[in-house]
């Protein structure tokens, strides 16, 4: 059962990282236009960085 002392912290840390990345995406306005972002992939205009 000693393996638990490693596995539980790992699962918590990985989950926490996921949460942090999600917070980052929210803070950087990545959910402002989900529909448009999904369609922009079809655009032939090169759009290499998100505009504000």
């Amino acid at each position, binding site marked *: 059962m000693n393996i638990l002392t490693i596995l539980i912290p790992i*699962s918590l840390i990985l989950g*926490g990282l996921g949460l942090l990345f999600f917070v980052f995406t929210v803070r950087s306005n990545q959910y402002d236009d989900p529909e448009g972002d999904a369609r922009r992939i*079809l655009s032939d205009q090169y759009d290499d960085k998100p505009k504000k």
Partner: protein
Amino acid sequence: MTATMRPNISACPACSAAPAAEALAEQAAQKDARIALSVPGVHCAACINAIEEALAAHPGVESARVNLTLKRATVEAVPDVTPEDLVGVLERIGYEAHELDAGTLSATETDKAGRELLMRLAVAGFASMNVMLLSVSVWSGAADATRDMFHWISAAIALPTIAFSGQPFFRNAWAALKHGRLNMDVPITLAIVLALATSLWETSLSGKHAYFDAALALTFFLLAGRYLDHRTRAIARSAAEELAALEVPRAIRVEAGEERQVAVSELAVGDMILVRPGGRMPVDGEIVEGRSEIDRSLLTGETIPVYGGPGQAVSAGEVNLTGPLTIRATAVGEDTSLHRMADLVAIAESGRSRYTSLADSAAKLYAPGVHILSALAFVGWYLYTFDMRTALNIAAAVLIITCPCALGLAVPAVTTAASGRLFRRGMLIKHSTALERLAQVDTVVFDKTGTLTAGTPEVMNLDQVTSRDIGIALALAQGSSHPLSVSLTAAARAAGFEPAEVEDITEVPGYGTRGRWQGREVRLGRAAWVEAPRLARTAAWLRVGDETLQAFEFTDRLRDGAEAAIAALKDAGKDVYLMSGDTTPAVEEMARRLGIPHWLAEALPADKAARVQAMTDEGRHVLMVGDGLNDTAALAAAHVSISPASALDAARVASDIVLLGGDLSPIADAVQTAGSAIRRIRENFRIATLYNVIAVPLAVAGFATPLIAALAMSASSITVSLNALRLR
């Protein structure tokens, strides 16, 4: 334009001593730099490209970005670029566009409340997944010290998470209790808190069952419901608010012979105001100088412009058509007839708030029921075993099992799907219960001018006029901005006619245009001016010398989809009415053309409202579709109301649903979608009840384990969400 209008920073040294003025100019420049446009027609990747390219190609535009979710384009540009230019650019490439007020926009742009909910949702999701992982180990057989450790770790995750994520429920529940009421949030809060408390107690006694995962899953599902609800409403609300600020409130004040552009709010009684052709009267007033024709259709529903000259009273909201007018303000701001009308609406509105939404009526039944059931379970088990721990555990299990996960999702999941579908068709649901009320509609009342018709006239009898007359009329009409002239020009050009050679063309504002053709005087204008008989229909007369009198008859052009919408509504078994302030022949003709059986002409605003009220008293549920100020009282009195985006502010404010595009056909679709949305909501309630009927006896009997609670809760929430998705 005078120099004061351009916010340029002055180069003269004296001005640099006036930092306040400079700061003011800078502020104005910054405010102008960002332009937002509502573009209801955008729907695909190709539209995004076309719009962004067209806007970026316009001189002065630095960048343009389309937001497809909100159907909106944001443009960064130098201060010289006006929103009107950009609307023109978009119209040339075939997209309808409206200017949005940048001030209101920045207020709603960063949706703080939505973001906060999303954060709480994410934290709850993260915590519930981790705790679920630990719980699965417990359910699959972890025992003794391992189980206790898992429970303690779960507690360490759950407590701070609930403290953060559960706040919206705690706040609402507290607010309700403080006023001595019960709402859905009270049982939710009680269940979460009781579950945490008994679980902590159990864990400290090395007990077998802990409900940490249930408390977290509950918070997560309920927050998901709240977030969906918020998102649907926030999009509609922000768009509606920005639309409300659509008519950018500026007016030209004449001060000692100099024209100055000022905000309408700065105008005072007695001010001289210049209204250019095409402009809207900002205040009530009296014409001092100038002659013109005035379009009063938004206020009265009349299609034919009325003559305006010195001494005549005008009301805010009327549109000046042909010549520049100077008016003296007699009432400003809140005192204008436009605002008094809005007050009428506020009174009628209060009647509508009596409608209780399905969710509220469910909560009213549900909240006391759950509390009584749980309290009974607690008392019963305590009397049976005299064991506080068992009794409390069972009471907590009952609260958790009955907790309204599915109920909390039942309504928002469906309304989100339905509003999303209607938004894609160009409809904005402003009011939260609008869909439910729309589903009950059995009678539809349409306004004529501006609603069924586009408000632009169309020539009827071009094929009955000789080509010589058309040529002369075209020459006279092409220089004028009167709507009849514009329409005549467009129709004659489209039919391939060339203008005749007419000299000395002059426009007489309020009357018509005259000129000289082959040495004879020719006139095109209103009947009295060319000495012609009056017709029942809207008409412009052409007089050539003394011989020919030729009438050009006009009719109002129907909006796209008007025929389809009415046919579909009639097919769906709704009673369709036409009510207009316009003359009897015009209304009768329109009713016949569209196949509307019942019509009412020459109706005053109060008549319309009274008629709608009478129908309501008969037990009908009326949907009112209207755009003008004369419709606002009726819009507010109706069970549910729709107005087009081109409608006056007051009308849009009074209505529950705003039609963004020019097409009317989504109306029939909306009624149908609302009907199926309500069916789904009722189904969802039944699913949630069914699950309670099965799970509650188990909980009361003391057989419920955290595993059963988790399974039942997830299963019902997912079924309800999937059922809602069927609407798409």
